[in-house]
């Protein structure tokens, strides 16, 4: 089936999956029934809500693990604290690398904040895109790869290039409803 229509951002399902797996670790180190329920709710949100919710889920999960760590310290439970701190660090690192949180420094405090949107296309302005497109240099394929490509039969791709497409498919280049 061919298609055309509005194209949203990439779905990034694997980010939701990894976050869910990490929230299972959070669930495993909770020490109260209420905290366990909170962790379950966050995991459920990661697995079912739109991707745009993941930054909020990450920030809430970090707050929960921080609370768990403090609670364990107050109770003198160093074994629980060690496990919870490790999970918190893992969650934090993933959040940063997946672009779910950004680290901000305010009044001598370092905090994690959720990214406003996971759709970079929406986050980046047109002006930024234009600047990037103009100023970012292109990088040619490495010589070895280019030589290998040129060794291919001339016209290898010709049958599937745009001009060679069957008339039936060429029609969809400008369907009426897209103007």
């Amino acid at each position, binding site marked *: 089936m061919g298609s055309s229509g509005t194209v949203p951002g990439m779905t990034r399902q694997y980010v939701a999956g990894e976050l869910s797996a990490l929230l299972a670790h959070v669930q495993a180190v909770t020490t109260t029934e209420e905290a366990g329920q909170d962790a379950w709710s966050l995991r459920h949100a990661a697995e079912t809500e739109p991707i745009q919710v993941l930054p909020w889920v990450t920030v809430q999960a970090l707050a929960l693990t921080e609370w768990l760590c403090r609670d364990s310290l107050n109770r003198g439970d160093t074994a629980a604290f060690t496990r919870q701190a490790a999970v918190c660090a893992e969650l934090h690192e993933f959040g940063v690398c997946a672009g779910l949180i950004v680290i901000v420094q305010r009044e001598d405090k370092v905090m994690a904040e959720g990214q406003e949107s996971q759709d970079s296309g929406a986050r980046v302005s047109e002006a930024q895109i234009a600047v*990037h497109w103009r100023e970012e240099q292109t990088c040619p*394929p490495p010589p070895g790869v280019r030589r290998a490509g040129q060794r291919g039969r001339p016209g290898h791709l010709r049958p599937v290039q745009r001009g060679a497409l069957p008339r039936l*498919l060429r029609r969809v280049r400008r369907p009426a409803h897209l103007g």
Partner: protein
Amino acid sequence: MSRGTQRWISSDPPFWKWFAGGRLNASFNCVDWHAGANPGKTAIIFVPELESDEHVHISYAELLRQVNELAAVLRDCLGLKAGDRVTLHMPMVPELAVTMLACARLGVIHSQVFGGFSGTACGHRIADSGSPILITMDGYYRAGQLTDHKVKADEAVAAASQEGQEVDKVLVWRRHPGQYASGTPMAEGRDFFVDELLADHKGRVVEPVQMPAEAPLFLMYTSGTTGRPKGCVHSTGGYLAYVTGTSKYYQDIHPGDVYWCMADIGWITGHSYIVYGPLALGTTTVIYEGVPNYPDGGRPWRIAEKLGVSIFHTSPTAIRRLRKVGPEEPRKYGYHFRHMTTVGEPIEPEVWRWYHSEVGKGQAVIVDTWWQTENGGFLCSTLPALQPMKPGSCGPGVLGVYPVIYDEDGTEVPAGSGILRRARGTWSAAGQSWLR
């Protein structure tokens, strides 16, 4: 693929039908074809997470045997037939690929749920897809620990039941055959160990069912915008042709390559570019069980060196993590990538340059791809060796796809400005979505 099927009809553009009237079997194209021509060639290399465990090489002949035997179990023990639906909730093990291919052999529609998801999430997807069968595994390794996975099957069955879908049978692969890794009991009459069922089906051969090209091959769930995941249906002929074509032209996969996509088969990337695309081309595909940075940031590069990986495929999130934990690790190892892919999200130019210079050692071409679960395969990408790469920008529309760029007012603008809003074209892998 059957001869004489290179035609399509269009009764309602742009809703094309691909290879209408043609019949094929995805399992045959991915396994039998190569097992006949090159039986000893390695189809799958399984890398267990524990570094002390040996890699497992599965030849195309061996893969054919395993797929046939499991297909016999599914048909004879469960009564599955073409058009039935089965949910899989499995980790990154070769048994997952075998299960998918066995389903495809019978024309059974598989719906793999990411193994890291909870049992409840799996249950919702079972209910949505109407699957009466769940196939799972007792445990798997993650970050060095053998995780109890079977416990999630019980949760999944309960969650599905709450939504009105009863699960009649649960098949449980054992991570270590003969040893049960879960603390949860097997439910009498419902749960069965796959290795015990297989023992009665040794050497069985199941003829691949010739499926209409438009018949569903699998379901894949993706987050929607409504707070409930939506199921995407991918058809057999169009999907297989598209992922095979993009694997050939954009992943530059040749039969002699060792190809490693470090994604999870639970996502569309894994379906398209770990299982169906590479196997349809008869190459060797790597399945890695665990997390990339276990036990340290050098693990992926040690695997690449040991296996002679020539094509590497991963996500920007994984690249950022590997860069963070070991920015200079890649140079310690003697692997050589010819081609690398980044997929799933935009990559910053700075991270792209590290990927290019450190991971690729400046010698590999990078394709930065853009696509979605609903599409089934790449929509935007550079052609390796033929088109220049721009750090931080995915490539142009792939062959047959014409991206359209609009500014914020909805006016069409040239490349280099605006935001991608629409794609025109007739890619054959586009799925049909179920929105509930």
